[in-house]
């Protein structure tokens, strides 16, 4: 298994056969163990309550568009960080510290789902969930359940992306070769690749163009 499910129309399969882990023999030991630990079994859930877990899993699936297995275990990775109080070392004055901000914002998300559809967030249909989140994002700096919506959005997406894009499966999807010590890079410059790097087979697939 070295590719996450992602439709080619959504940017999947651009680096065929590229597998970061196949290069792990070239990494130093400290790095091997840190990156390797993301692939093994993660600790039991310690921070989130079961009620929060259900909401959080659905939220992370949405933010990262993970609709089916195999998934990067974003929920578990965030739970580890919060259980170990590995915060970013700061929080906005308008939000409580991260742990509390997570609990309260998940509750608020459930309340939104309940108000709109009479069921929990995770039990809403995929499009309903997307619409709820879209509404939070669109509030910008306006209030959402007592907090500026943009700050909550930043909290959710920061944790989600830090977990997802630290995972070798996500690196395979974006062509990033991961750790580079002690080998380093020898072929620097535009369009110059190392023998172990794989070229993008769809260089014209510019998402910015497609949007506009």
């Amino acid at each position: 298994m070295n590719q996450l499910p992602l439709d080619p129309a959504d940017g999947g399969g651009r680096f065929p056969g590229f597998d970061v882990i196949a290069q792990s023999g070239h990494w130093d030991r400290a790095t091997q163990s840190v990156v390797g630990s993301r692939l093994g079994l993660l600790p039991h859930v310690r921070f989130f309550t079961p009620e929060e877990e259900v909401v959080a899993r659905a939220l992370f699936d949405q933010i990262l568009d993970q609709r089916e297995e195999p998934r990067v275990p974003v929920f578990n990775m965030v739970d580890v960080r919060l259980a170990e109080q590995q915060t970013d070392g700061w929080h906005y004055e308008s939000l409580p510290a991260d742990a509390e901000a997570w609990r309260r914002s998940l509750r608020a998300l459930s309340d939104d789902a309940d108000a709109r559809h009479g069921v929990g967030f995770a039990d809403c249909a995929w499009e309903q969930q997307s619409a709820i989140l879209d509404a939070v994002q669109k509030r910008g700096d306006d209030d959402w359940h007592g907090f500026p919506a943009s700050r909550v959005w930043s909290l959710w997406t920061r944790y989600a992306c830090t977990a997802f894009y630290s995972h070798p499966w996500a690196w395979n999807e974006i062509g990033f070769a991961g750790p580079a010590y002690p080998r380093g890079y020898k072929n620097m410059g535009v369009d110059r690749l190392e023998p172990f790097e794989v070229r993008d087979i769809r260089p014209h697939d510019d998402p910015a163009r497609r949007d506009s």
Partner: protein
Amino acid sequence: MGRVEDRNQSAWLLLPDGSRPEPRLRDQMRRFADDDEVDLVIVGCGAGGSTLLQRMARAGWKVVALDAGPFWEPETDWVSDEAGSHHLYWEEPRVIGGSDPVPLGSNNSGRGVGGSMVHYAGYTPRFHPSDFHTRSLDGVGADWPFAYEDLKPYYSDIENELPVAGEDWPWGDPHSYPQRPHPVSGNGELFMRGADAEGITAKVGPVAISNGRFGHRPHCIYRGFCLQGCKVNAKASPLITHIPDALDHGAEVRADSMVSSIEIDERTGRATGVHYIQDGRSRFQRARMVAIAGYSIETPRLLLNSTSKRFPDGLCNDFDQVGRYLMVQGAPQTAGRFESEVRMWKGPPPEVSTEDFYETDPSKPYKRGFSIQSVSPMPIAWAEHVMAQGHWGAALRHYMSDYVHWASYGALCEFLPQPDNRVTLAEETDRHGLRVAKFDYSQCDNDRQLLAAAQGVMERILTAAGASEVITIQRFAHLVGGARMADNERDGVVDGDGVTFAVPNLLITDGSVLPTQGSANPALTIMAVAARAADRLIRRKG
């Protein structure tokens, strides 16, 4: 000035293979007892603190530096990985507010021997001569108690000790560097191409990354993980540029020791030592003099937390100056999309800069200016760029799959010092029960104009290099100020020698003392100012 190795042996005190400092330096390190009255105790072993430590040890002083974080062993403690490098940052809580709060995150200051330079990018430009008197020159900011010329010899000393590699520098006070410029990656190549097409001068450097072997330090391997700590020991940080020589000259570095307050003798008004916490135990180190170098947030916090009968509102805070005039540089990053593969993460993030827009341009409505440099976000940082455009879900994944095609540049805008941009104490406490810092920031009109102008120039460079799309994220970098130098106690906290106005045997020798910030990355200037303070201190004693 003489040969570097006659002034600072650090690079020669690494093992011959360059992998680590000679183990004897730590194993046989001199250790002072808490009740030894040392000549000087330094709080913080980062850019400013380590420079002072090395200079004073060489001068024969009995000196110990305490750091809240660990004494790093890069081979085992650091990884070649973005998320796995979180422990390099100051993770104790801080609260941010104001109308433009400054998120710290992976741009946060460091914790541990070497300070923030352990994970800084490595750019080491000098300030321009104009930075030392912006008030007289442009009517904004402040004048320093000394001029560029006073700092110049220290700049060149430190540039030789780090050492710095780069092309001959045409801006500010034109100068050259001890090492030749590094080759550049795709990201830097496009910068040069775009700037050239736009008639903008761009130069390679200046970076504190050794180009070739320096002493026993190895050559850079262009792996790109400078912001995660350089395991190779090619990039300069005090851990390898100043601490080895300090230890060899009888200094002590006491890691994992969090200073909680400075003790003042109520009768004489002099500092007598520092209270600190190690392994859960409260301890007190006696000292004849104290220097604080804990970074622009922790230094004001420590002063404010050090209350006494004499200083009920915090040490050195008689005139409500502590924590004020804290500055960040506006650091928007603009990225451009290329048909070719750029793979910007290859090679060190710091490569190419332009200072063409650094000085006040009389034809513009704003004062002061900005510089532009190459930066190259790793995947997690890059995901922040993409999310800043409002993308999430499928659009986020799609954008991210395009990562190999993007080049990215960052500006450093000279935000002006303002009294209300400051550190105060929050109600929230850390695990030691000490009140944490609250950091408020609000931009002024000039600041916002600089941001827009800098973004415009970055877009020009990228477009001229062939980018089909450009995107920008607003960021901030490099906190300095908060306990600034001034001519008198009503305008600042320390004098030009770093000595506090209120306590004659208390110094501050980190980035907190800078009255202005220019558009240059600050570490070289912080070290040069600390080296100058050391020199003045040594002469004063004699």
